[in-house]
């Protein structure tokens, strides 16, 4: 045992081990400062009535008030609806686009990938301004002019409960699939050509190849995108904040926006910390379920 410890010490002193630990330590310090510390701090704050000039512990009052709050329930429901409507469609769209650009020449693939990735590079605020313009409620608004061609009366897209959630969902459907497309394309390129050749020899159709080769081979990728998509969707904040402010009548208040409002409108940081930890727990449970039931036969 002593000899082994001495051996490790020698390797640390003489070899690259010391350097490796040094560099790992930097990452560890950054992680500790900017991830672990805020999470632990949030946990502590969630049991406090937080004040900049002196907080006081209030037990589980913050958690109790959240479970009694109708608004938190509504925000959770809105977040769930948004997730169910956006994540699967985003996966299908990304997969479809990836399949369509796969047969193209490399330069064409690159061009399309760049085009689809562009919204991810653009500022969310700038995109929101464009969408606000599209959703202009007056008859002269772009979307209203389009539906006007079909003889439909102009709609108050963001100002009516019946259309506000759909407007945010539509915005999600039509933007920001670039990352998923690139990941799908990379995964498609990783499928061995021999599978397709064997299928062609057996006379398989396009859809048969898709069902029996592509979809099973892309299952790890799909699971990854599904889990990260659901996590991202549950944390959605920007769209609701910039487009509707959560309204009308809280019809687009998501949990992320509610946490922000609790913290920065009402200065109830303890309650906001508790809300964010409950959200993290919910996301963790959903991710666990996804891995449990969808990740059984997935190998990485």
């Amino acid at each position: 045992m002593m000899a082994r410890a001495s051996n490790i010490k020698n390797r640390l002193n003489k070899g690259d081990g010391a350097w490796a630990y040094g560099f790992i330590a930097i990452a560890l310090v950054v992680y500790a400062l900017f991830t672990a510390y805020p999470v632990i701090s949030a946990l502590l704050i969630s049991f406090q009535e937080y004040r900049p000039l002196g907080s006081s512990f209030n037990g589980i009052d913050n958690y109790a008030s959240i479970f009694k709050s109708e608004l938190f329930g509504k925000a959770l429901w809105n977040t769930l609806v948004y997730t169910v409507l956006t994540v699967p469609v985003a996966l299908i769209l990304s997969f479809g686009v990836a399949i369509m650009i796969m047969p193209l020449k490399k330069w064409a693939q690159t061009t399309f990938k760049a085009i689809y990735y562009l919204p991810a590079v653009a500022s969310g605020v700038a995109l929101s301004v464009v969408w606000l313009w599209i959703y202009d409620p007056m008859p002269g608004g772009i979307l209203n002019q389009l539906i006007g061609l079909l003889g439909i009366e102009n709609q108050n897209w963001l100002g009516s409960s019946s259309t506000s959630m759909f407007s945010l969902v539509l915005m999600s459907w039509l933007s920001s699939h670039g990352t998923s497309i690139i990941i799908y394309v990379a995964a498609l390129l990783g499928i061995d050509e021999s599978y397709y050749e064997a299928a062609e020899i057996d006379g398989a159709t396009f859809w048969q190849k898709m069902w029996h080769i592509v979809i099973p081979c892309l299952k790890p990728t799909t699971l990854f995108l599904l889990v990260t998509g659901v996590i991202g969707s549950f944390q959605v904040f920007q769209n609701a904040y910039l487009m509707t402010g959560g309204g009308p009548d809280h019809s687009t208040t998501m949990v992320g926006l509610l946490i922000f409002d609790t913290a920065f409108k009402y200065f109830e940081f303890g309650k906001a910390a508790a809300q964010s930890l409950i959200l993290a727990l919910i996301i963790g449970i959903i991710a666990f379920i996804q891995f449990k039931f969808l990740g059984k036969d997935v190998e990485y």
Partner: protein
Amino acid sequence: MKRKTKFAATVLALMLSVSALSACGSSNNNNAGPSNSPSPSASTGTEGEAAKDTITALLPPVSPKYQENFKQMEADFNKLYPNLTLKIEPASWEDMTQKLDTQVNAGSPPDLAFIGSDGISKYAQMGMLLDIKGLVTPEMAADFDEAPLEYMKNGDGLYGMPAYMEVHAIGGNKQMLEQANIDWKKVQQQGWTYEEFREAIKAGVVTENGKTRYGFVFATAGVASKDYLSILVKNAGMPSPFTKDHKYSYTSKNYLEVLKAIRQMIDDGSMPKELSSVDAGKRWNMFLTGQTMITGKGLAVFENSANQNNKKIEANDGSAVADSIAVDYLVLPVPSFAGQEAVSHAVVDGYVAFRGKKEPTEEHKANIVKAAYFLASGQVAATTNADLFAAHITDSAREIAKTMESTRNPDNIAAVEKMLEHAAPARPDIPVELGAKAIKVENEVVIPKLQALLAGEISPEDMYAAVKKAAIDAFGADGVVQE
């Protein structure tokens, strides 16, 4: 070579770690450091041997040209107090609150921030405001008009100095008002009831070539969301969310009458059915492009904006608002409801003093007051309020303003003065806890329900019931007006 690279990498890594750690330990700029240690001369106006000090101020674009003058303001302040430095951090109106809130919650706010007096209770509740009552000299206090200075108080404390006192009015297009046979001069001087107003805006509706010009458009989306209702209810016997005996007043029957009126004006076709999505920018655009006869909310400075645009139209300047028409902007009072007296919604904004986690030194506090007074009076106030078309509220600014040329419409000046006579008084007696609860009810229930009411999704009665329930939950059945 390899050793050198490793050495350089290590040094870089250490620097990164140290800088990351040091960022966590940054000190609060409200606390006087070695350069601003206490000095016996702090509370006096003379700066003979006073220690050096820096006062920080977070300031939005108070008037169109305000932020252009920051360098000059800093230089003038330093000239007046050679040992003091005024460090101004500019902010847009959009991110002002968020920037300030972040700094306040981190325990390191600026020494001064330009905010509305209605924000005082919010920060006072957190204990982050600096009470300057004992630091303001009698000469400083005497320079201000009494009414606006009252707005800077909460309980026994004085937390800042007012920059201006304005009224939230509505604004009309003179030509369109005359076309609709509305005696605007009489309205300016005598006001109008809701019933008269309703008929007037009906008369202002014109439909031509399938396009509708509305009688009245008020911004209700975005940052303007809480203005509409809070301005209207002041004229319905509820000048404050709390009665004099501190009962929440928005459970009064008159509140329901205002909600019914809001719906009526849309149902009449006098206001657009898409009103819930009309923000401040949109409705101003609608006003300048002739899509509405009257707009709200209106501030005196809008006359200036309209005049500027008129000049651009006349000069064929391409930067004029697209499709805009020449507009003579008229200040109009908000109508009164349910037979109640009209009470103008007074807006008092100013320079509010903050403190950090540690108690600032007495000298630093005195310096903050000097900076607040410098910004709220004299040349700075005269220039800013002239740019804003706002009335002066200090004698020192009035004196300087005498030499300034004004292009304001005299009818509008008279109308604003009339409304200021009926301005809602300050309510420093409202406890901060009640104020904070009222803000929460407003944000969580009133604004969302108002959006639904404007969109035609709920009835005025539904909204009234929801507000009443939330108020009783927050203040108790005995804490609200029961009628």
